């Protein structure tokens, strides 16, 4: 068992010089961080949770944030359930992670565990004098966003999770963070930690809160730093409510940020710095790109420091102090190769002095033996000014096994005329090999997204 390698979240908050004007805003509740730092929503059971492996199953992500603050340093392990983890997955997850306590909001989770402690969270917070001693470097167990089968669990520690977070500059106005991500996933958790450790506040999206409502709330709370996937941002910019926000910093991660989405954001928020970050649940935060261009400078590969990168067999490999320690359970296999590098499965291509992301290794469409990454085709389609977003997939074909087809969402509906289609197809023919050019292209009103905020890709 590791001793703590840094102050707990609660201790950090209690030491904050300007805690009084910091907040966590949920959909239904606004909670002062001062109250959270000195209170508990665990009904007097915090002491009993010390040293346990706690499954954190919440309906409202605000409660997840509260529990993380309370349990960091106190629990031996926190298993943070993402919203799309099904009840059917719970028993195996609990067994694999050696869970002996369950913390939940709302209804009792559908999970039978003998000898486990079940603790319901309730508001309002009750004052807490002296919290239990933070005796652990708590293991934070996160679920990878696998698309099939039972998601894998990876172990992080707070020091690794917060490795990419720089201390807040004193004198700056306290940031108000917001994220389209769910904070129970890696991308969202990063933002929760940034807000908590960076003298900030956070606006948390409610369960299934419509994006337009969330945008209104973000505007109302005066969000200054807002993050999401490129898909989140494309969806947000379609809503008139996007005019309600005036962020000072915009950040994208989780999917390939193509030039089209970077340019749309630049146009929508003139003068606002727009960064895109590369991170994965396994590898942690890799790097950030802030020059407004897609891809990343090839010079990043030579850098030494916390994060080292290399390209092998066309995929990006990352070695980092922030890499998750291991998968939970023996069956999952080693997370890291012998040399400490994680194969991210993200395929990159060198063009000039910049690497561009071309797609996921396992998302490749095979057209008569030739490989097509859906994302490289989408990047070309998305460059058309009338296009908001697109999804490219393989369709079964008796001649070549598969062919490329595209579904496209336009900024304005009703504009689905032949001219736009012809222009998009002409651009594809100009910039892509014939086998990569969509054989059919149709306009759709919307595209499905995963719980993690990424485009839903169905493998043909």
């Amino acid at each position, binding site marked *: 068992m590791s001793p703590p390698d840094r102050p707990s979240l609660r201790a950090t908050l209690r030491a904050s010089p300007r805690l009084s004007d910091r907040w966590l805003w949920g959909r239904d509740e606004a909670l002062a961080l001062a109250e959270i730092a000195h209170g508990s929503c665990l009904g007097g059971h915090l002491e009993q949770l010390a040293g346990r492996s706690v499954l954190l199953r919440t309906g409202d992500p605000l409660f997840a944030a509260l529990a993380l603050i309370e349990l960091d340093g106190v629990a031996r392990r926190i298993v943070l359930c993402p919203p799309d983890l099904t009840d059917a997955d719970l028993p195996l997850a609990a067994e694999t992670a050696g869970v002996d306590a369950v913390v939940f909001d709302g209804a009792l989770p559908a999970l039978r565990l003998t000898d486990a402690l079940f603790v319901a969270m309730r508001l309002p917070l009750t004052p807490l004098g002296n919290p239990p001693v933070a005796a652990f470097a708590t293991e934070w167990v996160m679920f990878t966003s696998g698309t099939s089968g039972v998601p894998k669990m990876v172990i992080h520690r707070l020091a690794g999770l917060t490795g990419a977070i720089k201390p807040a500059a004193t004198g700056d106005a306290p940031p108000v963070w917001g994220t389209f991500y769910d904070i129970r996933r890696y991308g969202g958790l990063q933002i929760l930690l940034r807000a908590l450790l960076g003298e900030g506040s956070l606006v948390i999206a409610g369960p299934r809160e419509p994006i337009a409502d969330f945008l209104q709330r973000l505007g109302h709370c005066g969000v200054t730093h807002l993050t999401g996937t490129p898909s989140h941002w494309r969806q947000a910019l379609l809503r008139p409510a996007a005019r309600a926000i005036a962020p000072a910093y915009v950040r994208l991660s989780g999917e390939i940020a193509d030039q089209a989405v970077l340019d749309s954001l630049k146009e929508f928020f003139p003068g606002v710095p727009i960064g895109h970050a590369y991170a994965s649940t396994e590898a942690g935060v890799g790097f950030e790109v802030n020059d407004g261009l897609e891809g990343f400078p090839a010079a990043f590969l030579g850098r030494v420091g916390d994060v080292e990168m290399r390209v092998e067999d066309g995929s990006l490999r990352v070695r980092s102090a922030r890499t998750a320690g291991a998968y939970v359970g023996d069956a999952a296999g080693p997370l890291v190769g012998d040399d400490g590098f994680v194969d991210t499965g993200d395929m990159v291509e060198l063009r000039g002095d910049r690497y561009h992301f071309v797609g996921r290794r396992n998302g490749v469409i095979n057209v*008569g033996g030739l490989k097509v990454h859906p994302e490289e085709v989408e990047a070309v389609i998305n460059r058309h000014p009338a296009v908001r977003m697109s999804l490219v997939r393989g369709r079964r*074909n008796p*001649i070549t096994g598969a*062919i490329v087809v595209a579904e496209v969402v336009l900024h304005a509906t009703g504009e689905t005329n032949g001219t736009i289609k012809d222009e998009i197809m002409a651009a594809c*023919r100009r910039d892509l090999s014939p086998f990569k050019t969509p*054989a*059919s292209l149709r306009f759709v009103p919307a595209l499905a997204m995963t719980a993690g905020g990424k485009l839903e890709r169905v493998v043909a």
Partner: protein
Amino acid sequence: MTVRSAILEKFQDVAARLDKRLAPLTDETVLLDSGLDSLSFAIIVATLEDDLGVDPFTTAEDVYFPVTFGDFVAFYDNALKADVAA
């Protein structure tokens, strides 16, 4: 529009799209000599499925690929008749 003219138009359309020089098509034209490659045929079959609602290559019980343009048209004709009968 007849099935034959729909298919003919599709051949010309895809040839233009992929910059292929299409040979004059008669019933006797061997498809491999038509100037189109396998990607062209893949696109023709996919887009004909969109337009006509059938893909005889997938529904056919035998592994069969028509040899001439006339065979190709007949293949679709028969599939459409079967589709109507079903």
